């Protein structure tokens, strides 16, 4: 990769800004609102409008759908410093991300680290170009927190694996072209050592999906079933039976992405004042007032702690198991926020209606209950903190 000196970086910034100014359509500089506003790529790409397409094509031509990937795989080949500049300039103009994809953030790193040259050439390029929509197949109904307890089997049939089993929580599996999966290739080995990392075409015979309806209504999640699916041997990533190494690598990557408490349009105190009103200058519901104050203080403390961790990282302190701590505290905080909003919002928040627009808050409330389950339950995070930060002995 190139190393950039300061004058080079300044030049890069000027160029980049000029390029973005010229190539990013005005409508692509507004915040995304719904699922429609995201471009996901795939064999049958769906663009919402011409601007979206143009923006994607422009960025693709620079390799900037995946700015840090090497140019030979369709990437931008940017250095860390250049990438930082690109992000800053896009942010300052409000440019949308041109391509959303689990391929970029989840499969890509695995292939870059563990893939063969052929696999990188083929798959990374397709991801960079938005040609394949990938989905993820880790979880199984019988293996929740115990991810390594997975049972989907891939039997060695000489030139191919025969895959049988079921995956769950496969986001957008009903749209995706391909799935990257953890499968069991050795039933007799200890559970962490018989797992392999496999790429499977969703159009292959024997693959079916079924969308999952949640408490909160429809969801991007699916169940995905494999019934005697033949998968070519070359679709194995890394070494057979050593897929757990890849899984662990990706899970660490994933966990650090969650736990932020989303900023809302309205702070909780404003929400409460609007919904409940004041008496003598104080929120009319004294119990709610205390709970709201407590929540706001915790939110501020949490955001300061994120900031501190970032500053500590800059100063050279490794993040360690802190991602578990942010995951735990952040998701519990978000659940508390919605619990409070349900209490604050009163009767209006009880109306569910027939579509997600009408019952927005109660549906979001229901959805938050999964925050402390998905991506590792709160209990799993607490176990990790107890063992890896506090050094308490295994139970």
């Amino acid at each position, binding site marked *: 990769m190139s190393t950039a000196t300061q004058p080079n970086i300044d030049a890069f910034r000027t160029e980049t800004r000029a390029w973005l100014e010229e190539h990013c359509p005005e409508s692509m500089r507004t915040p995304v609102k719904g699922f429609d506003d995201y471009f996901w790529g795939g064999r049958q790409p769906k663009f919402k409008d011409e601007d979206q397409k143009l923006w994607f094509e422009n960025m693709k031509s620079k390799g900037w759908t995946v700015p840090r990937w090497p140019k030979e795989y369709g990437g931008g080949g940017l250095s860390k410093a250049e990438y930082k500049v690109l992000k800053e300039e896009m942010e300052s103009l409000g440019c949308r991300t041109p391509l959303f994809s689990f391929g970029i953030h989840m499969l890509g790193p695995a292939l870059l680290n563990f893939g063969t040259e052929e696999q990188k050439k083929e798959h990374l390029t397709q991801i960079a170009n938005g040609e394949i929509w990938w989905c993820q197949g880790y979880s199984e*109904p019988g293996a929740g927190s115990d991810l390594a307890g997975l049972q989907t089997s891939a039997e060695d049939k000489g030139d191919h694996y025969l895959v049988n089993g079921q995956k769950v929580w496969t986001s957008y599996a009903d749209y995706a072209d391909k799935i990257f999966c953890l499968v069991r290739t050795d039933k007799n080995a200890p559970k962490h050592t018989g797992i392999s990392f496999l790429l499977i075409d969703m159009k292959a015979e024997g693959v079916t999906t079924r969308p999952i309806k949640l408490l909160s209504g429809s969801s991007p999640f699916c169940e995905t079933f494999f019934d005697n699916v033949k998968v070519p041997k070359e679709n194995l990533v890394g070494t057979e039976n050593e897929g757990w190494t890849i899984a662990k690598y990706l899970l660490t990557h994933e966990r650090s992405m969650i736990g932020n408490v989303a900023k809302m349009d309205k702070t909780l105190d404003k929400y409460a004042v609007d919904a409940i009103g004041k008496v003598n200058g104080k929120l009319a519901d004294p119990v709610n007032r205390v709970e709201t104050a407590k929540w706001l203080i915790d939110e501020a403390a949490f955001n300061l702690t994120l900031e501190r961790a970032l500053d500590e990282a800059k100063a050279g302190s490794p993040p360690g198991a802190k991602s578990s701590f942010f995951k735990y505290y952040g998701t519990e905080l978000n659940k508390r926020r919605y619990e409070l909003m349900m209490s604050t919002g009163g009767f209006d928040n009880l109306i569910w209606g027939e579509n997600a627009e009408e019952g927005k808050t*109660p549906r979001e409330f229901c959805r938050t209950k999964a925050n402390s389950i998905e991506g590792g339950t709160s209990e799993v995070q607490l176990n990790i903190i107890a063992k890896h930060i506090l050094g308490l002995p295994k139970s």
Partner: protein
Amino acid sequence: MALVLTEEQQMLKTSAKEFFNGNAPIASLRDLRDKKSEAGYDQLVWSEMANMGWTGLVFPEAYGGLDFGYAGLGQILIESGKTLTPSPLMSSVIVSGTMINAYGSEEQKKTLLAAIAAGEKIVTLAYEESNAHRPHTAEASVSNNQLSGTKKIVLDGHVADTFLVTARTEKGLGIYVIDAAASGVSVERHTMMDSRNAATVTFSDVPVLAMIGLPGDGEKIMDHVLDVARICLSAEMLGSMEEAFERTMNYLKERKQFGVSIGSFQGLQHRAAHMFCEIEMCKSLVLKSLQAIDAESDELATLASMTKAKVGEIAKLVSNEGIQMFGGIGMTDDEEIGFFLKRARVAQLTYGDYNYHIDRYAALKSF
């Protein structure tokens, strides 16, 4: 009075359990929801309940009732809470029936109460106007014997035959009887998060049929009737939390992770044991409060607020822990544990939430 059920109450509880399990399991609620039932409840189940006398259970024999007492009715509610069965029992029998029985004229009892007790008419109280529980205030008013105003969260409002409506008078709150079919009544049905129904009802110069009590009696009447309603709803909520807890404990025993039942993890065991204790607290409060209705206790208001506050708090705890302990599967619509979460939130806000009753309790105790 001993804090145990009498033999008759125990028998009633047993038959209610059998009835709801057999005729109205949670699958029925799902069905009503998915088929967008017009009534919002199973009318066959409702007429069966009437046939068994449950709609008239607490009313005098003179009006077709059985004079059996609220402690008995409470057992039916507990059992209906376990199956989350929707019906107009709360809106029509407990709220409107109790109000007419205690404060209605002889004429009103002979007609309206008898019809409620027989399950023939659905009568519902329309009193909330803001987003929070405010039973003592109303912007709605009556002039020239015609009522105007808008009422929110009117339970079963879209199927009601008659409304009891609060309105302000010069002397305070008044309660007016209004025919749902009268011109000037417009009903907007809302499906709530628990798949039950509440309506926004707008009255525009609607002729008043009669009053319950006199102008200015409203506050006193509302306090008493709502206290009965709070206790009865708490009984239903207790049933729901008992069932949700039992399902969660069963799941903890069945579900295996890392080669063992997740119920063997001490972290979950301690939370489960704590919940058990809290549910026991709720049981005692509910039983004591139900008995207090029958005993016409002076402590009714205090007990009602204590019970609704505590039960509301624990209903939230138990339904949240249910989802968390079920994990991913608990988040799906296919698994029934989520229905308890949704119901708990609606019930918790109905007739005053935790915050309201903590505040009211302190006020009743003068601190």
